[in-house]
């Protein structure tokens, strides 16, 4: 019985493999790759929504932070864009960037009701993707993320104000093996090259003393590796990428890394349609 199941599984995989189609060419995966959304295609998802403005330019946003009104009493606006090389061929290069703004109201909800401040997170990425054939592609990427936060709190005669900054450099590799028009296997490997110490400049003031601090904090146990095997499904209208692995966890949207290693889940799904027609 076990032999029969194994043979059937092999046959299915081989069948998928030989039937690998141009699906990835028409709707390539845009996460962790240099590929962009084709012109006019809108991929609508709760975690990520993007639009191919032109073939070489994708603009998008992470909707979830926009929808945090019940929790934060405000939205967290964010936007990202990716521009890829215009030439044809197996090698594609891309540059991308994103910006997320957390305003005072959101920070007050997250940190301290009396706090007043804001945070700006920006990310930048460089991607190179190489398509070996219709089935297999390899993408290499370099990510940069930075967070700057400014804040203050006032309580009667005492006050505190300050700013914090930090940034992260990381590299990644994503291999995707398309077994059928719908189904692909993927393996994501990320390496945290450098996570800067978080520098905090703060001033607290009471009638008796003013404390001005210029401090930096960094983890003594910084982990570096993340590995996430996953699967991708590309249907006519829907796309779903799911991965589960272990390692450094990168904060969604902001791209900053945790010091510890965690179980990591990578999830993206969207409904795709042509906006221009």
């Amino acid at each position, binding site marked *: 019985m076990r032999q029969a199941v194994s043979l059937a599984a092999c046959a299915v995989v081989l069948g998928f493999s030989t039937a690998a189609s*141009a699906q990835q*060419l*028409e709707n*390539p995966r845009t996460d962790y790759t240099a*590929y*962009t959304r*084709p*012109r006019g295609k809108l991929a609508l998802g709760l975690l990520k929504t993007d639009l191919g403005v*032109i*073939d*070489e*330019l994708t603009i998008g946003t992470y909707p979830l932070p926009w929808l945090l009104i019940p929790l934060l009493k405000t939205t967290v606006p964010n936007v990202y*864009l990716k*521009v890829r090389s*215009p030439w*044809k*061929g*197996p090698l*594609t290069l891309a*540059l*991308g*960037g994103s*910006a997320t703004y957390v305003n005072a109201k959101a920070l007050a909800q997250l940190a301290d009701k009396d706090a007043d401040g804001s945070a700006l997170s*920006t*990310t*930048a990425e460089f991607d190179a993707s190489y398509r070996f054939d219709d089935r297999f592609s390899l993408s290499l990427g370099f990510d*940069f993320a*930075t967070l*700057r936060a400014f804040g203050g709190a006032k309580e009667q005669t005492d006050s505190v104000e300050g700013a914090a*900054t*930090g*940034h992260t450099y990381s590299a990644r590799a994503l291999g995707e093996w398309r077994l059928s028009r719908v189904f692909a296997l993927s393996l994501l490997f990320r390496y945290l090259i450098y996570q*800067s*110490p*978080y*520098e905090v400049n703060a001033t*607290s003031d009471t*009638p*008796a*003393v*003013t*404390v*001005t*601090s*210029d*401090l*930096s*904090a*960094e*983890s*003594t*146990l910084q982990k570096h590796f993340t590995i996430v095997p996953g699967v991708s499904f590309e249907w006519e209208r829907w796309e779903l990428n799911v991965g589960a692995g272990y390692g450094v966890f990168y904060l969604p949207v902001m791209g900053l890394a945790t*010091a510890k290693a965690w179980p990591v889940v990578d999830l993206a799904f969207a409904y795709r349609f042509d906006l221009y027609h």
Partner: protein
Amino acid sequence: MKKCATCTFPGSSHHRDTAFALQLRHVKALWFVAYLIPLGAVACGGTADIPDTPNLQLLLQSYEHPTAVLDKTTVNDALNSTPNLQELADGMEAATYLMGDVGEASDTASTKSSSRVRIQGSVKLDIRCPGELDAPVYGDNGSVSLTLAIAESAIRRTFGGEAKACVIKQQVAGRMARIQLDGELAFDVGRDIGLGQGWTGELLASLPGELRVDEYLFKSISGRITQGRFQNLVEMSDGKTVVLELGVNGINVRDASGVWFCAEGAPCAKQ
């Protein structure tokens, strides 16, 4: 419509041809913007500088190992070299007022930190002295500035700063006295203070400036509080040193050979 077979640009090749030049111009501009994002952000973050701290090792060694060898005559000379030892002790005790703010700085820097986080940098305290009245009046009674060095998540044991006509009240012999500090200050609290921890009570202070306790003026002095007792380093006329220590019933004089006990109104005796 001709499909592109080997690339990711689906759609009409005709459309691509006519729009390509315009798109490329947009693409170049966007690439430039995307390039600026990381450049603008690279300047932030980094490790905070740890400021230099005063070196009080020599002074500490002098307190630990006095060099003079006294006899029954010279022990009285040593004793008489600091005639107002109690007032000096009380004045130095007033300096411990500052340690409360050092402890507060330690608490502030430790907020939400854990043993897995290494903190370093500097904390500057600008302390407004309360004055000599019962109700503190901040702003009109001088100030003390101290710079603390934070390394490996601890305040370094030595730190320094400057006092500017800082007026504090302190109990002296059962009454409140006016203490005024002026000039440079340097302190050694015996060991690094872990963030969130308090001051242990050990203190070595070097005051190259002035310490005024009511009508008594002390210039360029040092003092040490260890195990709750006040010590003062005295330099004899020959350049050698002894340490005077205020005890419960008198004064201990420590020289290179041992300790003399000098009770009030009685001759000093070698212990």
